[in-house]
């Protein structure tokens, strides 16, 4: 176990010894003595892992935290090294980052923008974290990304799927490895057209907040391009628990596909309700009625039980992938915790390694140096095939998985099966694509 002693101000120690009880006015603006916010001067560096520990996404947060712990262990040379062995960059040597031992602090986002920012601030102000990562919703990711931009630390986003994170709310200090709504649409649409035909009428139920809207827009655009018709798009309240009154009119609308733009608890409930209504047993317009869940989370899909069987969706990563990197990660995660990691865990683990690697390559913890090292960086071996961190919007471009709820699961973790690995080229888009327009990356802020 790492003994975390939460050193923040190694820099202060010298002054303190010299001053011996005398107040020494060292600085007047935030850490201006250092070259950048929270410059690590001691023998260790502190990372901040900000994940939901309470509230509906607590399990996802717990899984993210496991991945972070694993990543820190590997960075410090412990364990079997996981994906560090398969990573295309060999800058990481298992001796911490730039020779400094990696320590970490954790916090609770509560899946609320306010609480997440409070927690991130405390990591930056109190614990001297030089990078913040984690999170399980786009609202939180965007809020914390904004904070990190202002404070001058790097933000490595966790699970966030909204187009806005690297679209209109993109920030120079923020980086997203996870895929987004547009990519889901681009990957999913051809598979849907293949499986269900191009002459389909879709009825969308959409969570009534920004993530829901961007995903709905993306999916509708991608499916319409292939000939589908969008019959209706109904916004559902975030707080809704019973979706019966939204689902009941679906059949009457003439639609033969139901698209559920819901995540987490909303998704579990709306899918369960839809199956309860027997929608999938119906024949409409002479075709079998189908349900689609564009963004799957395996952890949450488990909550819907048998209802996910055969339902198509997309996901960032899945533990059943057979490439070398994924296998290495699943092995070391499974050995340590006894079960396979979730896509949230994968993203968080990868983001931590990517950050550490960028620091090594840049030779500094300075956010501007790190950002430069990450921008336009091509890498491989982290489970998603050859990947690019695009400089224009700090979005990762990589293969996207189309998955289906498994018919005969062998265990509670074996919920999804990979239907297709959509190649990166198919999900790429221009940085000024209308769905991502309106933002401004700004310039990197090192704080100080």
């Amino acid at each position, binding site marked *: 176990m790492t003994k975390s002693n939460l050193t923040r101000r190694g820099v202060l120690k010298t002054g303190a010894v010299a001053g011996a009880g005398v107040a020494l006015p060292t600085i007047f603006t935030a850490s201006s003595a250092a070259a950048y916010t929270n410059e690590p001067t001691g023998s260790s560096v502190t990372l901040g892992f900000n994940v939901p520990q309470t509230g509906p996404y*607590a399990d996802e947060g717990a899984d993210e935290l496991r991945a972070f712990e694993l990543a820190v262990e590997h960075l410090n040379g412990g364990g079997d090294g996981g994906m560090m062995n398969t990573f295309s960059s060999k800058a990481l040597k298992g001796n911490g980052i730039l020779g400094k031992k990696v320590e970490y602090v954790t916090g609770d986002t509560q899946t609320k923008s306010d609480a997440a920012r409070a927690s991130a601030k405390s990591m930056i102000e109190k614990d001297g974290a030089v990078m913040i990562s984690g999170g399980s919703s786009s609202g939180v990711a965007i809020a914390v990304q904004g904070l990190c931009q202002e404070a001058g630390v790097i933000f490595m986003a966790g699970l966030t799927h909204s187009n806005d994170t690297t679209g209109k709310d993109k920030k120079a200090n923020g980086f997203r490895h996870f895929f987004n709504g547009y990519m889901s649409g681009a990957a999913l649409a051809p598979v849907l057209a293949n499986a269900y035909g191009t002459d389909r009428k879709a009825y969308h139920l959409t969570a009534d907040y920004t993530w829901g809207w961007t995903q709905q827009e993306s999916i509708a655009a991608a499916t319409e391009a292939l000939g589908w018709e969008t019959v209706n798009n109904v916004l559902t309240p975030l707080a809704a628990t019973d979706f019966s009154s939204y689902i*009941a009119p679906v059949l009457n609308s003439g639609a033969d596909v139901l698209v559920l733009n819901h995540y987490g608890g909303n998704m579990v409930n709306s899918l369960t309700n839809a199956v309860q209504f027997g929608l999938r047993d119906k024949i409409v317009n002479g075709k079998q009625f189908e349900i689609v869940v564009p963004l799957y989370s395996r952890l949450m899909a488990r909550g819907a039980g048998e209802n996910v069987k055969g339902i198509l969706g997309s996901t960032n990563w899945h533990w059943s992938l057979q490439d070398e990197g994924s296998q290495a990660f*699943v092995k070391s995660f499974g050995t340590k915790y006894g079960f396979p990691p979730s896509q949230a865990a994968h993203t968080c683990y990868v983001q931590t390694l990517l950050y550490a690697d960028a620091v090594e390559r840049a030779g500094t913890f300075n956010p501007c140096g790190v950002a430069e090292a990450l921008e336009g960086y091509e890498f491989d071996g982290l489970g998603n095939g050859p990947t690019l961190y695009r400089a224009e919007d700090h979005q990762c471009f990589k293969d996207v998985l189309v998955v289906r709820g498994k018919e005969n699961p062998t265990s509670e973790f074996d919920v999804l099966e990979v239907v297709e690995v959509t190649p990166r080229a198919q999900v790429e888009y221009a940085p000024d694509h209308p769905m991502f327009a309106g933002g401004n990356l700004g310039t990197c802020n090192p704080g100080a």
Partner: protein
Amino acid sequence: MDAIILQILNGLDKGSAYALIALGLTLIFGTLGVVNFAHGALFMIGAFCAVTLTKFMTWEVATGEVQKTAWGSEVPVTKPLFESWFGPEVGGALIDWSVPLAILFSIPIMIIIGFVMERGLIKHFYKRPHADQILVTFGLAIVLQEIIKAFYGANPIPTPAPAAFKGSFDFGAMLGFDPNVIIYPYWRMVYFAFAAVVIGAVFAFLQFTTFGMVVRAGMADRETVGLLGINIDKRFTIMFGLAAAVAGLAGVMYAPINSPNYHMGMDFLVLSFVVVVVGGMGSLPGAVAAGFLLGILESFASMNQIKSLLPGIDQIIIYLVAIIILLTRPRGLMGKKGVMED
């Protein structure tokens, strides 16, 4: 027309859940004068009674064989506990029917929880200000939630209804509309019927038993009943147990509708308070009527025709209706004077 019938059906079902929770809450409000913020937690525990029974029946016991998992470690092959006890057929059927079976299992558990809560905690707060009651029951609700979370995690847990109740019934075809226009799931019909039976049983109990008479008298005038030398303490305990059982039953049967999670109680808590108050403090029929009324109105508000006219109306309809009712009828639909007005 068909859309309206459909939403009435939906509303009846939503209303059933609201009415059941509000019924228990108003029993506690009306008889004991306690603002119980832990009532949602009781509903949640009810749902987890179903989860627990299902989990127990499907407890994985080793068969002695070993298989290799995809992530590289070796695990023993298992099969559900009840199948290994009763054989695949009987065991399988029992597992399939675990939610209805959980009713039997949950009643005594919920009553015991109610008794313990009342004797151990609530009893000491009858004479304390409402503010203190809120604080202590809120604290209790958090503790109960966290205990459940410690055992079952934060994610929802699928708790399916028996296979016989899967799918939906085509009312449209029966009523002469086009097929598929008005469909309704069997399990939701069961839930509505169940709610009607429970509500009827509670009313009958209060109407036709001596115990019920005393309790109703106590709701109307607590002091007099106390003066009559009736041991009201014991009855309060029983009332609390009853209210807990009603909340628990509502939860058990709700489990297949939405997979239970540890915070489902909090989701319902605020709503059930609104229902109780709209119904009128201290009025059982009021709580039931308000539950169904709000359920149906909520369903109507989510109709596309109405939503396109008033965007976001389904987000606020319940609160809007609550405000209108409270402003036009000072004590809710059927409230009694002087209950919780200061």
